[in-house]
């Protein structure tokens, strides 16, 4: 049971990581687009 809970928690954290990574990707794109406007 304990390992099941651990796995569940890991799934949650993994999904969160995935979301964060996606957000970072989008932010990177936006940032670079903005910077290219400056140059």
């Amino acid at each position, binding site marked *: 049971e*304990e*390992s*099941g809970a*651990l*796995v569940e*928690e*890991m*799934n949650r*954290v*993994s999904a*969160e*990581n*995935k979301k*964060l*990574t*996606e*957000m*970072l*990707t989008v*932010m*990177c*794109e*936006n*940032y*670079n*687009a*903005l*910077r*290219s*406007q*400056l*140059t």
Partner: protein
Amino acid sequence: MDSSYFLDKSLDLNLNSFSHMINEDHAPPPPKREFVGDFALVNDEKAPVKEEKRELVRYLAQVNDGKAQEPVKEEAGLAGELDRMSSENKKLTEMLAQLCENYSTLQTHLMDLASKSSKKEAINSRKRKAESDYYSQNLIGIDGNTECSSSDEEPCKRPKENIKTKASRVCVRTDASDKSLTVKDGYQWRKYGQKVTRDNPSPRAYFKCSFAPSCLVKKKVQRSADDPSILVAIYEGEHNHMSPSQAEISLGSSQCVNHGSSIHISSSMRSSAPTVTLDLIQPVLCRAKSSIQEVESPPLQQFLVQQMASSLTRDPNFTAALAAAISGRIIDSTN
């Protein structure tokens, strides 16, 4: 920049290297590939991954697919992995926060630049407008009135006042077929621009004195809109040097005749009318002068004679021969 690099970095959890990546100059924008798929995609095959981790990833993929659920034996390993993922999560959050901050800073900077450039543009357009107003007023008041309106704002006032005291207008009748915008006034000018104005089909040429920048006099020449045979020259400022042909002109001024050149001088130029009149008919004057010189002694011949005399006097043989001839003549005459 490959997206796998970005993904690798996200797993590597190196905050500094990520910052370097987003701040790198001339870096191409990141590809628009979205991060979709399983957790397994996050792990690049090239990256060193522990066997244990791979098993876990496989297991998680199966869990996500809902195909199978195997019991996990090594709880400690799982807990360690959970810790690692949590710390990764935390670092990702920090990176995101920093990136957001950088983004907002950059955006503010960009907005500042945009507002500055728009202000500059507005100032430039106002200057251009004021300048064109001034020129159009000068052209309308051809018969002497060079007053400028002083209803503008303070920054535009000072240069206008300066010009008001020194601007002068000269109208010269020329051959209508002559398309050049040249007014011969005895000074040498350098043309630095030409433009077509709204109120006149013929272009306006801009000249500055060849002694510039020490002499700041400028001249604008344009054909009159009413009579294209009249060239209107507007002078700004006064020369701080002698005209190159002034001495020559003053010598021959008593002999010059105005051959049909209609000259009208306004404002401050009027006080020095004789000089200007001579300047303006310089071609006529030169013609008259040269004809006089042709009758009396052509300058070329005179020059040749002088050259010959100087070379002969320098020759000792010639001097001796001349002395002998003169003395012989004297002896003959006494005999």
